[in-house]
């Protein structure tokens, strides 16, 4: 089976010497500074909750991408490693004597170790092959452990899950983690540490070999590397960081349930990673940020957000397999040529009607949904800050008109955009 995700020569990772353990300082410093100052701008508790959620998702997505993007292994059961790490952390938090001797910030190490041990056990047989077989095993094991959660009540707590209290730990320089903001900085610290470690891992010889095995396992074997063991190391490392994410989840929410283990959670992280872009290190970070925001905002606004997420996901796989990060990196050549500015006007000309098409179509979808499923007599609905009667003709005409005109304009201007794109990507005076 030939794998997957062809290496992109524009990727900056390719130009660095293999095994050079350096971190490009500027982006990381910016990221670190952002993480530190964010709570100063968003002080509301709800905002901090969202940021905590985001940070945990980032770690998990990065860990997941060690498999998907860097190792070419598609896992349908990765929530298990995060979940089990989290469950173990809650158990440690509930061992009052032991927990009282430990400061809370070291807990993620335990979660990580538990996730790692589980990954070692499962990886010992699942990493024999990549591709479909690996995906199937991960699915089976994931379902198995998720189903066990209602059977092994001692560890998983059955239906209601298990809960703990993070404040019983040894105070850490006087901080007892009663406040949300203290937890935020704990999570932020672990976010930076694990992201940096995962980045460095991708630069080690093992990490580089993981890429080689992803692209051409046979050739890697001929070079004398065991594809299986290379996969195994990535898998174990990924389990470790997933466990850290799980422990942070346990610290943040203080409760874990079956939901942390099941296929839905595993599928969600695949979605996040792929939307962000599996081919680049920062892709999952982007995916986690955007997805958490969209999820929070959309799920407040509409019941159908899962439907939109599904459409977005399928469209991404079909048309932009590089994800969001891929879209951004597509523009690097144009930037290098200094011709990216020429793209702005054609982009606006096409994308603004495109946006209206999407909004019109989603309005139609919402109206159909309301028409079919709202209670009898409940004719009024609110959409885009306007209330109207979903059983009268006018809103339908408006929505259809917006959609059709938007689509027509998009289609009409699309060739210009393509031409501008071509122009911006070809050097001046060249054959093109």
């Amino acid at each position: 089976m030939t794998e997957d995700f062809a290496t992109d020569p524009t990727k900056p990772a390719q130009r660095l010497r293999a095994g050079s353990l350096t971190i490009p300082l500027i982006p990381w410093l910016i990221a670190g500074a952002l993480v530190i100052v964010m709570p100063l701008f968003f002080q509301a508790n709800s905002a901090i909750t969202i940021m905590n959620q985001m940070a945990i998702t980032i770690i998990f997505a990065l860990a997941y991408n060690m498999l998907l993007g860097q190792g070419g292994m598609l896992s349908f059961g990765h929530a298990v490693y995060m979940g089990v790490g989290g469950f173990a952390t809650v158990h440690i938090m509930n061992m009052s004597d032991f927990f009282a001797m430990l400061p809370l910030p070291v807990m993620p190490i335990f979660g990580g170790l538990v996730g790692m041990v589980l990954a070692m056990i499962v990886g010992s047989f699942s990493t024999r092959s990549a591709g479909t077989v690996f995906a199937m095993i991960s699915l089976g094991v994931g379902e198995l452990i998720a189903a066990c959660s209602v059977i092994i009540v001692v560890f998983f707590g059955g239906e209601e899950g298990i809960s703990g209290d993070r404040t019983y730990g040894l105070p850490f320089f006087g901080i007892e983690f009663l406040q949300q903001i203290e937890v935020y900085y704990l999570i932020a610290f672990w976010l930076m540490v694990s992201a940096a470690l995962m980045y460095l891992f991708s630069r080690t010889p093992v990490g580089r070999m993981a890429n080689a095995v992803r692209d051409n396992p046979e050739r890697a074997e001929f070079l004398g590397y065991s594809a299986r063991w290379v996969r195994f190391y990535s898998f174990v490392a990924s389990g470790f960081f997933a466990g850290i994410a799980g422990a942070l989840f346990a610290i943040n929410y203080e409760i874990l349930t079956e939901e942390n283990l099941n296929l839905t959670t595993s599928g969600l992280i695949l979605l996040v990673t792929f939307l962000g872009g599996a081919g680049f290190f920062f892709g999952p970070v982007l995916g986690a940020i955007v997805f958490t925001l969209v999820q929070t905002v959309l799920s407040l606004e509409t019941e159908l957000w899962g439907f939109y997420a599904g459409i977005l996901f399928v469209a991404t796989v079909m048309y932009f397999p590089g994800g969001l990060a891929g879209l951004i990196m597509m523009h690097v050549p144009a930037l290098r040529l200094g011709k990216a500015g020429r793209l702005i006007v054609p982009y606006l000309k096409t994308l603004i009607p495109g946006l209206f098409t999407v909004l019109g179509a989603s309005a139609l979808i919402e109206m159909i949904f309301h028409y079919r499923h709202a209670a009898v007599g409940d004719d009024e609905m609110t959409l885009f800050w306007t209330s109207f009667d979903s059983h009268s003709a006018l809103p339908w005409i408006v929505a259809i008109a917006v959609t059709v005109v938007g689509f027509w304009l998009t289609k009409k201007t699309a060739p210009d955009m393509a031409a501008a794109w071509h122009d911006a990507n070809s050097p001046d005076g060249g054959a093109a």
Partner: protein
Amino acid sequence: MDLILVNLIDGLVTGLLLFMLSAGLTLIFSMMGVLNFAHASFYMLGAYFAYQISIYLGFWMGLLIAPLVVGVLGAGVERYGLRRVHQYGHVPELIFTFGLALLIEELVQFIWGKNAMPYEAPESLQFTAFSIAGNSIPAFKVFMIFTSVLIFIGLLYVLTRTRVGMIIQAALSYPRTVEALGHNVPLIFMGVFGVGTALAGVAGVIAGPVLSTFPGMAFVLGSIVFVTIVIGGLGSLWGALVASLLIGWITTFAKAYNLRMEDLLTTLGFTKPEPIWDSAWRDLWTLTSPQIADILPYILMVLILIFRPYGLFGKRDA
């Protein structure tokens, strides 16, 4: 003894149902080398379409039309979706079908809502076919068995005895050569994908009235179908049959007979810790077979993958 017979029949129904799904899935896998994650979603679509048709035209027209619609839809997905994604490789293909499964579930919820649909067996089949020691076997179950056996025989006949079947088989192993002989291989692929999904649609039509038609029905069966074809050996039709029946019977028997871990452990010479609710092993001691019936297929799969990674009937390594 009578109970065994009843359970054998129940297990057979489950197994054959599973087989109708796994047969299509395994065919599609051996053809394109990609597992169609959305396969169970087509099964769900079959049930919903049949329900919608049965409102206007009755059950039998539903049985006839719904699989056709599902098959056409499946062929469309192959033509306009999978074929496009194919160029990116296998993993994006899998991801695509996974996304499709999510999307179809949301779509079904969007159109029909979250509640179960009142889709029922036709009146003409709502009687007791025969009864064994007081356990009545409804006629619909007999009908299900006959339909699936008929489909299996038909499939086997077409694949092994007809010219079309020969070309399909050849296209599975040597697509390039078959193409060079002047056959339209992409069309064959599209056809097989359509037929596979149509089979899943049939399964949905006849399973809907029994297992109830609700948006989660694909999710419930989806992963079991994968387990089935992994156990049977990826790409093997006979393996799919054996594994489906095996899983059908194992889960039915585990649910019907209340085997208790306590008895097993006592027989092995362990003493039960008292009081049991305080012991760390309480979950092990109170374990019963109905409790674990649903995870038995997964355990079986993990064991198979460890000891015989290519499945019961598969060729060496998929």
